[in-house]
C-alpha cells in the first residue's frame, strides 16, 4: 500500500512470497526502487513484477539523464502502465508506483491487473487488501502527517496479514521525501495486535 502526505509518500508491504501454500520467502522485499525518489510496491506474480520493474528502472534512469534532474513519478508510472497494458493477457501484475518529485511532491499511482493507471491519495493492493477495504475507508483522513501515515500503513498491513494466508512476515515501510528515502522494518512480534479471536 502507499499513502500521499504533504512532502512525500509512505509505502509499505508485507514480506511473504508463496508458492501455493508453501512460503517460499518469508522475508521478501516487495518495495523496489525505480529511481532515487521513486519506488514501487509489487503484487501478483513475483517473476512478472520483477521483470517489469527492472525494465522500467532502466528506462527511467535513462530518462533522468536525458531530461536532467529527478524523473517525474508520473512518467515512471506511465512507463509501468505501458508494459502492464500492452502485455495484459500475459501478465499477473498489480503495481503501486509512489514517490516524490520537485514538480508535484508526493504522488501515488495505482496500476491494477488490466493495466489502467490512476492517481489516488492512497492505494492498497495484493490479496490481503480485500480484508482491509472497510478498515482503510473508515480510518483514512486527508492531510495526515508523516507519522500518522506510518501508523495508518502499519495498522492496515497488520490487520491484512492476520487474515490473509498469502500475507505475513514482517512489515517493510519506506518514507520518501525530498530529503531521501527512510526504510523501516517492523518485525513480526512487534506488529500491532488487534482482536485475534
Amino acid at each position, binding site marked *: 500500500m502507499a499513502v500521499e502526505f504533504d512532502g512525500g509518500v509512505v509505502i509499505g508491504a508485507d*514480506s*511473504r512470497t*508463496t508458492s*501455493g*501454500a*508453501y*512460503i517460499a520467502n*518469508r*522475508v*521478501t*522485499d516487495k518495495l*523496489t*526502487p525505480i529511481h532515487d525518489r521513486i519506488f514501487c510496491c509489487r503484487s501478483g506474480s513475483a517473476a512478472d513484477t*520483477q521483470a517489469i520493474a527492472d525494465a522500467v528502472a532502466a528506462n527511467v534512469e535513462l530518462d533522468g539523464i536525458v531530461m536532467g534532474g529527478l524523473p517525474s513519478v508520473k512518467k515512471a508510472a506511465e512507463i509501468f502502465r505501458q508494459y502492464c497494458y500492452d502485455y495484459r493477457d500475459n501478465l499477473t501484475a498489480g503495481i503501486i508506483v509512489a514517490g516524490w518529485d520537485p514538480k508535484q511532491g508526493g504522488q501515488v499511482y495505482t496500476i491494477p491487473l488490466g493495466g489502467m493507471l490512476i492517481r489516488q491519495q492512497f492505494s492498497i493492493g495484493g*490479496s490481503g487488501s480485500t*480484508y482491509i477495504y472497510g478498515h482503510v475507508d473508515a480510518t483514512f483522513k486527508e492531510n495526515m502527517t508523516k507519522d500518522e501515515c506510518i501508523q495508518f500503513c502499519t495498522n492496515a498491513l497488520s490487520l491484512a496479514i*492476520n*487474515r*490473509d*494466508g*498469502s500475507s*505475513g*512476515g*514482517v512489515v*517493510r515501510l519506506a518514507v520518501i521525501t525530498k530529503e531521501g528515502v527512510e526504510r523501516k*522494518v517492523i*518485525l*513480526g*512480534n512487534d506488529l500491532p495486535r488487534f482482536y*485475534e*479471536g
Partner: protein
Amino acid sequence: VIMADLMQPFWQGGPSPGLFYEYPGKWSSDVASPSDARNRTSQPTVTGTSVLGLKFTGGVIIAADTLGSYGSMARFRNVSRVMKVNDSTILSAAGDYADFQFIKAEIEQMVIDEEVLNDGFFMSPGAVHSWMTRMLYHRRSKFDPLWNSVTVAGFYNGESFLGSVDKIGIAFKSASVASGFGAYLAQPLMRKAIEDNGDNLSYEKARHVIEECLKVLYYRDARSYNRYEIAVVTKDGVKIEKPSSSKPDWNVANVVRGFE
C-alpha cells in the same frame, strides 16, 4: 444398417423392460447422480492444517494450531482441533472442520454409550484407531469421504500409542506422525530427534521438538497460525493445554534488501 432401426424398443404394448426383476442401479438412491452432490463432500470448506504427533517415554504429545481456514482466509482463529476421547486416548484432525465435528460427536456418543454399560471397560487407543480406519475407508468407498487426516494418540497398558488415518483410509502406527505440511517440514525434525535419542525421548525433549516444528510450520505454511494447542497423554491421564504461541525470529529480515 441404419442406426434408427437399432433404436426401436424391444416390444410395444407390453410391460416396460426391467419391471419384474432387481438389478444394480434400478433404484435412483443406489446410484450417484448430480442431485446427490449435496450429500457428497467433494471439497472441503473450512479446513485445519498440520497435526503433529510424537511418542516419548511414558506418553505421547500431539499438537495442532487453532486455525480454521476458509480457502486462503484465516477465518476462524480460535478453533480447537484436538479432542479427548477418554482418559487414555486423544484424537486430532486436519482437513475439513465440519467433518471433524461430525467425528467428534460420533465418538463422544460412543463414549457415553460405553459408560452407560457400566462394565468398567473403555475403548483403547488402538480400538479408536481401528474404528477411525474402518469409518474413513467405508466413507471413501462410497465416494463420500470425511475429508480429514486423523491422528489418534494414547497411553494404554503401560505403552504409548500413536496412529494416523487419512481420508482414503491409509492407516498406520508410528513413533512420529504429521499431516499436511507437517509431513514435509516437521516429520524429518521429529524423526531426527527420535534417532538421536535412541528411540528414548524424554518428555522435555519431545516437547521442545514439537515446539520447534510448530515454529517452522508458522514460518513456512501459509495456512498456519501462531496459536496452537498441545495435548499430552500419560499414565496419569489426558491434559489438553491452554493455547500458546511460538516466538518466531524475524531478525533475518534486517539482512535482506531488494531481490538481487
